[in-house]
């Protein structure tokens, strides 16, 4: 009897311990007690293909913020909530915020840049092949390539809206190095910004079949005093027959002029 009780208690204790460690995982993500099955590509790498979307409010403000008219309040995605701006840059960020309705590059329909593109409130689809990941965004039909064939960044300087992304697998984590940016994109609608010296290291790790832990280290010695981190979860869109639609953005009064009146049939 006692022996039987022990055989019950030991696994139960182990299970409790496992759950306790799950609750205190350092990155705050829920950890399963055992190995979790994740989808894998034929080459054995984790398979991150599918349609994904964030469920946070970072598009409005990557830091903690209260709600305003048209802006959902929410917890930020910046670790520690502090962005280590240099003094001049903090002043510029405040200026950007004050003028955001006019000077936000998103308002001009420009490509929103990386990582902003990843947490816009629109879905995106990852198509994975051994050579590259192609990310198709519903927002302004942006196409982003992450080359995973071991090729280096092309020599710069190159000023791209989305930068140049080269990825490699470290175990089951996809680590992506992104450089060659321009200085024209922001991080959010709250005026957080960077220079063309921006350098990102993104980490994509499947927590299970339907969740990607997405972490970004942001480095820009012209604007910040030290590197800082963002962390969030990408959720798989699991609705039946889910597909991307489109969100075209145009900085002029499209509906007033198109379809071209003479393309319409006679009334």
């Amino acid at each position, binding site marked *: 009897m006692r022996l039987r009780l022990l055989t019950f208690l030991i696994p139960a204790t182990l299970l409790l311990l496992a759950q306790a460690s799950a609750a205190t995982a350092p990155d705050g993500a829920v950890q399963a007690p055992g190995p979790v099955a994740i989808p894998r590509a*034929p080459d054995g790498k984790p398979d991150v*293909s599918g349609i994904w979307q964030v469920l946070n409010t970072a598009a409005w403000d990557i830091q903690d913020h209260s709600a305003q008219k048209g802006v959902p309040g929410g917890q930020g995605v910046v670790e520690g909530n502090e962005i280590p701006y240099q003094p001049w840059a903090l002043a510029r960020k405040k200026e950007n915020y004050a003028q955001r309705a006019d000077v936000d590059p998103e308002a001009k*329909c*420009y*490509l929103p840049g990386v990582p902003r593109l990843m947490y816009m409130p629109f879905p995106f*689809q990852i*198509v*994975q*092949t051994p050579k590259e990941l*192609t990310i*198709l965004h519903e927002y*302004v*039909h*942006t*196409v982003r*390539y992450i*080359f995973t064939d071991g*090729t280096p960044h092309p020599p710069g300087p190159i000023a*791209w*809206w*989305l930068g*140049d992304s080269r990825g490699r697998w470290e175990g089951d984590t996809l680590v992506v190095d992104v450089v060659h940016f321009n200085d*024209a994109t922001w991080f959010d609608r709250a005026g957080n910004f960077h220079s063309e010296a921006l350098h990102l290291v993104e980490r994509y790790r499947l927590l299970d079949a339907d969740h990607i832990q997405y972490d970004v280290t942001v480095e820009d010695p012209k604007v910040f005093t030290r590197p800082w981190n963002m962390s969030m979860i990408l959720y798989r869109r699991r609705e039946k*027959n889910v*597909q*991307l*639609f*489109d969100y*075209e953005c*145009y*900085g*002029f009064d*499209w509906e*007033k*002029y*198109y*379809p*071209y*009146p*003479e*393309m*319409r*049939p*006679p009334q």
Partner: protein
Amino acid sequence: MSTTRLIGAAGIAVLVVGPGGPAFGQGPQEAGSRASASAPGPLERLADGQPNVQGVWNPVNAGSLSLTNPVPQAADFDPTIKPLPSRIIDPPDGLVPYQPWAAARQKLQGHDYAYPTKPEHIDTQHRCLLSGVPRLFTIVPSLKIIQSPGQIVFIWDSYHAYRVIPLDGRPHVAPNVKLWMGDGRGRWEGNTLIIDTTSVKGQRLTYIGDFYSENARIAERLTWPSANSMIYEATITDPTVFTRPWTMRVAQRRRPDEEMWETACYEGMANPDQFLLKSAPGRQ
């Protein structure tokens, strides 16, 4: 990079439309023989059974300006270069079978394209808006095909346009939804990909003002006679604009499998409205 590649593509377009060059409707073997990638051979199959047609493609003879009377740009420099035959294979006269009102509209739009005085005279392609289907299969810049289980993806080197075609037999989206690239559903029959596209927006097809309305339905057949050549055909059915369905054909050939780099379009471009003319010759 993309500019270089664009020039390269244009150069090849010029090369193949010279006197005695391959005419429209040429055999696929000839198109394939000009491809610079691996030798033609039977198409390998992917794990999900799709023929592997991945890579970069572009038209042997594009049709940006006109489908019916495609004047090669080289004709600007060399008057002996003759227009190519119509891209339209049905009806047999090679003309778009417009209803009378639509034929008049097309003519006006062609005139307004040459002499734009109002914002709506500007082709939406020049505003970097998505040109839709089948127009993007007739432009000079390359397109890239990526396949993954249950779908085929087309990505264009210009306008960062893309199109995801599910192959799993799912139903179309609701007809009231209108999408810039339409809503395509595909299936393979041997080496032919058949795509049925609904939910299109009204789009222009050429610079000379050809167009269809949002009531159009587009049936495409992409046939690979070999690993390096593809025949693109699109049949447009639109009872609002045309008297009958009609079909275009544009041969495509494989291009070197280069990385596609960023091609921002709208960003930083001059406002096309500033090029509008103050006056224009009268419409005919």
